């Protein structure tokens, strides 16, 4: 039928894996923000959730790195991480290969997206699903933008991918929800892991709320890294959601830097 929901959220593994080490009040605020997002998502009665993630070498490697990929399977396994380390049990998540196929058909009209009939989730998808579809009763369709292995997908192409997702969603009879996960500033899994650049985070969120394409796509690799670390490359997922929600009002419902989770955590969605 259409796009019925589109939002953004963080996916840092510490959110679940190191929850017991974080400031309890901050953790509760973040978890509460995820709950609000789940309520908003569920209220739109989606038939499928497309998660635009920035996976971390769980499926795609430099032997054949796609700029974009979409899962096309009836189920997905994950997370690949040690369940104790991530704090999320390994499970099977339902997919919808036939719906994926129809979405890919349409997206391919403007974006050369790869498809994958095997896909193992990592924290980039598993952490959001842990909060947004905790019963794993909603069909999930994973999508990926290369935010990890340079040369990376250019930001303006991430915007175009979002436009293609919107167009594809509007051409299928199902009710499609869309969530982009990642970012904002972080230096993940490096000696700089504790750093968070709040000022830059808020600047990116302002650009996202405004749907300012020029400002968003101007965040090239060098400027993103200098301001927001390697993890900032993941703002491509947010750029895609902005591209997918043109004409709608976007709101940031929560932002808080949480050092124990090694990232500035932001959630928000569009009024559709």
């Amino acid at each position: 039928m259409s796009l019925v929901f589109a939002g953004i959220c963080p996916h840092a593994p510490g959110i679940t894996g190191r929850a017991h080490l974080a400031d309890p009040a901050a953790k509760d605020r973040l978890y509460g923000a995820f709950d609000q997002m789940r309520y908003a998502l569920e209220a739109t009665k989606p038939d499928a959730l497309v998660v635009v993630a920035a996976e971390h070498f769980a499926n795609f490697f430099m032997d054949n790195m796609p700029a974009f990929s979409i899962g096309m399977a009836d189920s997905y396994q994950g997370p690949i991480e040690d369940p104790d380390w991530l704090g999320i049990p390994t499970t099977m998540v339902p997919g919808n290969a036939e719906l994926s196929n129809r979405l890919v058909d349409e997206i391919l009209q403007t974006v050369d997206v790869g498809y994958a009939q095997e896909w193992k989730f990592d924290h980039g998808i598993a952490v959001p699903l842990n909060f947004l579809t905790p019963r794993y009763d909603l069909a999930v369709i994973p999508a990926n933008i290369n935010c990890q292995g340079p040369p990376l997908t250019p930001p303006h192409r991430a915007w175009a991918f979002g436009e293609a997702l919107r167009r594809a969603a509007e051409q299928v009879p199902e009710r499609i929800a869309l969530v982009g996960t990642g970012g904002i500033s972080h230096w993940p899994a490096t000696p700089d892991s504790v750093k968070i650049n709040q000022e830059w985070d808020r600047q990116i969120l302002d650009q996202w709320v405004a749907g300012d394409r020029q400002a968003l796509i101007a965040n090239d690799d060098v400027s993103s890294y200098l301001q927001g670390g390697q993890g900032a490359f993941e703002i491509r997922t947010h750029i895609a959601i902005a591209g997918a929600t043109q004409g709608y009002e976007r709101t940031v419902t929560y932002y808080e830097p949480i050092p124990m989770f090694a990232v500035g955590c932001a959630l928000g969605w569009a009024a559709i």
Partner: protein
Amino acid sequence: MSLYYVQKFLYNLNRDDGVQAQFRADPRAVLAEYDLTEEEIEALLGSDIGLLFHLGVNGQILMHFAAFEQIEWADYLRLMKEGIEKHGPVREGVYAVTGYGGVPARGEPVPTTDTAESGKGAMA
């Protein structure tokens, strides 16, 4: 130098239970399937996080190897720092391109960032 194959091995290890079982049973046999230098083989056999970071392994791959080897998060962060102190700057890969840990990339200055809570972030 064969950073590509070091990372390829760790990528396979991280996502494949079968490779994990093989590596526990006969690590040298598994590593023989990859085009690795002696230095790289010893770093992997010794779970030398500091040396692997210095060689250029991406943290998104390396942190899972650390977890696989039962290395706690705080120790993982410490070992990377010690690796740089001992071996010098990251040789290649994404961090050599972007900069890291106070080491600038492409001659660009490293930005000062908001570390207001970094005092309690030693394990973050």
